């Protein structure tokens, strides 16, 4: 197995890590060296949970073989470095789809499990961890073992931030589709209450729901956006998506995204159709993966990189905290386009550190404008904390260490399952002493 020393990046490109990188081409029977160790999938986590400075990072992307597939049940077993994109290229023509999917398919199966990723159908299907009957885990203190749903190590590894060992292969239960297209409705809404009403009304009859929200607009336009809901269609062929044709060739100047360009974009986007609603027969690629058509789009934020802030606030707190959050963001003028709002449902994930809990989740990007940006985050944190909400480690590069145990009450149980040789920059940041 070749090893090299090089800089590794997370998607937000804030602070690279320098690490010894080994890239196994075959599922290893033993871990490299004494550690510290961390697995790295496709680096689509925004913050530092996929980075380890000064340690050995195990890059998994060549572990991409499908090892078993039952065409009658849709149960697929694959090596952990396979991308969701590659799984789709295999399963869509055969009439199957991922049980749930994040907003990009360019993530690995192992990475998706380690963050217990969620998608637009969370209110129906929960997280990806709800659809992983078993996986193989290689730890520094044990030979490869298979962990099944119900096992303690299964629960710890789902959403376990890669800290319980290396997942070498996993089973995933796919879901049948008759067409690669969805019947989609877009509905313009003018504020958070209308969003909540649309979410409630759609929960039972729409499998996929999400909203795009304009985080620049304040005042009377605060919380305006477009509600997007879709169901798998019966019409249309099992057509595959195409690979990205365009790519951002280099880091753009940091000023490309400013409050004027973003405001213009958001206004155009909000007004992109006439009337209140629009219906579409849409392929899964623009519906689930609107950004995968452009390679390396994270370069539009320039060399300094960017943050994503994703939080969830529980139903008990009502919409009050989210209104406060939106007001703070609008007043700061720092938001970028494409903020995403969704309500999580009540399907519980097995994962001990799984992020989704019932409530409203908001995710949006912020260019790194130094202290101004961090102070805004501190104000948002305070609102989330008071509401009894939490932040998503997969997106995080700056959460306060004392918030982590508050946000994740099962943290102490989780600690029992840590692999002694594994750690990450995120984990170190959460344990400053």
């Amino acid at each position: 197995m070749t090893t090299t020393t090089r800089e590794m990046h997370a998607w937000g490109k804030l602070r690279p890590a320098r690490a010894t990188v080994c890239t196994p081409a075959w599922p290893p029977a033993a871990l490299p060296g004494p550690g510290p160790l961390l697995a790295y999938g496709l680096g689509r986590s925004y913050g530092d949970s996929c980075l380890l400075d000064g340690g050995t990072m195990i890059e998994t992307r060549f572990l991409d073989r499908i090892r078993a597939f039952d065409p009658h049940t849709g149960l697929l077993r694959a090596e952990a470095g396979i991308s969701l994109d590659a799984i789709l290229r295999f399963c869509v023509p055969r009439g199957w789809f991922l049980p749930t999917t994040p907003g990009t398919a360019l993530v690995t199966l192992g990475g998706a499990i380690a963050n217990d990723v969620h998608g637009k159908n969370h209110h129906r299907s929960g997280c990806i961890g709800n659809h992983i009957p078993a996986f193989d885990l290689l730890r520094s203190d044990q030979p490869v073992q298979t962990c099944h749903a119900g096992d303690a190590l299964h629960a710890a590894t789902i959403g376990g931030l890669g800290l319980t060992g290396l997942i070498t292969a996993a089973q995933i239960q796919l879901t049948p589709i008759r067409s690669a297209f969805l019947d989609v409705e877009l509905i313009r809404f003018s504020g958070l209450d209308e969003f909540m009403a649309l979410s409630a009304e759609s929960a039972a009859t729409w499998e996929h729901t999400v909203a795009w929200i304009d985080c620049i607009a304040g005042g009377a336009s605060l919380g305006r956006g477009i509600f997007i809901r879709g169901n798998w269609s019966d019409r249309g062929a099992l057509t595959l998506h195409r690979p990205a044709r365009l790519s951002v060739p280099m880091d753009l100047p940091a000023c490309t995204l400013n409050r004027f360009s973003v405001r213009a974009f958001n206004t155009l986007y909000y007004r992109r159709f006439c009337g209140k609603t629009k219906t579409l027969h849409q392929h899964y690629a623009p519906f689930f993966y609107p950004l995968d058509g452009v390679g390396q789009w994270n370069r539009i934020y320039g060399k300094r990189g960017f943050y994503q802030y994703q939080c969830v606030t529980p139903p008990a707190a009502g919409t009050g905290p989210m209104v406060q959050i939106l007001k703070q963001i609008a007043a700061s003028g720092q938001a970028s386009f494409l903020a995403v709002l969704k309500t999580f449902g009540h399907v519980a994930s097995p994962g001990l550190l799984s992020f989704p809990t019932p409530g409203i989740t908001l995710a949006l990007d912020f260019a790194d404008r130094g202290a101004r940006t961090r102070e805004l985050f501190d104000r948002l944190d305070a609102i989330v904390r008071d509401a009894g909400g939490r932040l998503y480690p997969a997106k995080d590069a700056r959460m306060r260490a004392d918030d982590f145990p508050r946000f994740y009450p099962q943290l102490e149980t989780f600690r029992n399952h840590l692999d002694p040789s594994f750690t990450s920059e995120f984990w170190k940041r959460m344990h400053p002493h």
Partner: protein
Amino acid sequence: MSAPTYQAAVFGATSSICQETLRAMLRQQPARLLLIGRNAGKLAAVADDLRCRGAECLTLTAPLADFATDWASLLPQHSANRPWDLFLLAHGTMPDQEQALADGNSLAEVLAVNFVSPAVIAAACGAILDRQGHGTLAVIGSVAGDRGRGSNFVYGSAKAGLDTFLAGMRHRFAKRQRIKIVTLKPGMTDSPMTAHLTKGPLFSSADRVGALAWQAIRAGTPVAYLPGWWKLVMTLIRWLPEMVLHRTRL
């Protein structure tokens, strides 16, 4: 289900480019594949993947770089009494050049894996194609064989030898229209072989290279650069006068 009608024997089947070539093949048609390589465990993993994608797979473990195996008589034993539509040769290794230059044995081994072994196997496959009267022999060479360059001439010279060997075979079979000899020349490809190199814009994914390789095999393209723009690049590099080349660090 009836047995697939297309049949191929694949040497160095554990290579990443080769796996992608076979995946591309299976996206278009089922096939019966004899997967040959030196490691049984790795071959089994490859066979799992290709079976899920619609292939019928057999595996055969053999040390490709020893020349004792009599492929011309061994291959027919695994043919299920059907002709071979394709022989694909993919094994190769990119050495640490300094080490190879300092040690005769390791230099000889690099030449053996990249030239002698594929040439010996190609000759045997050629004999089978001759008997059958049809079929394709496709061999993965490299753009590195197009010109001797200071940074990579040990590997490059072996691939150059292979290139010439295949050009000769093509000439020999020129009148046999149903026999195709295909030289595949990938440029820099993101695979385990290059995992230690920094990836610049000249790199292509193994996925892309494999898909293009399958296209070239299907079309029977005599010499295919993968992707095609490498043909232009290598033409320019071949034309560089030595005086100019020597000023570069290529």
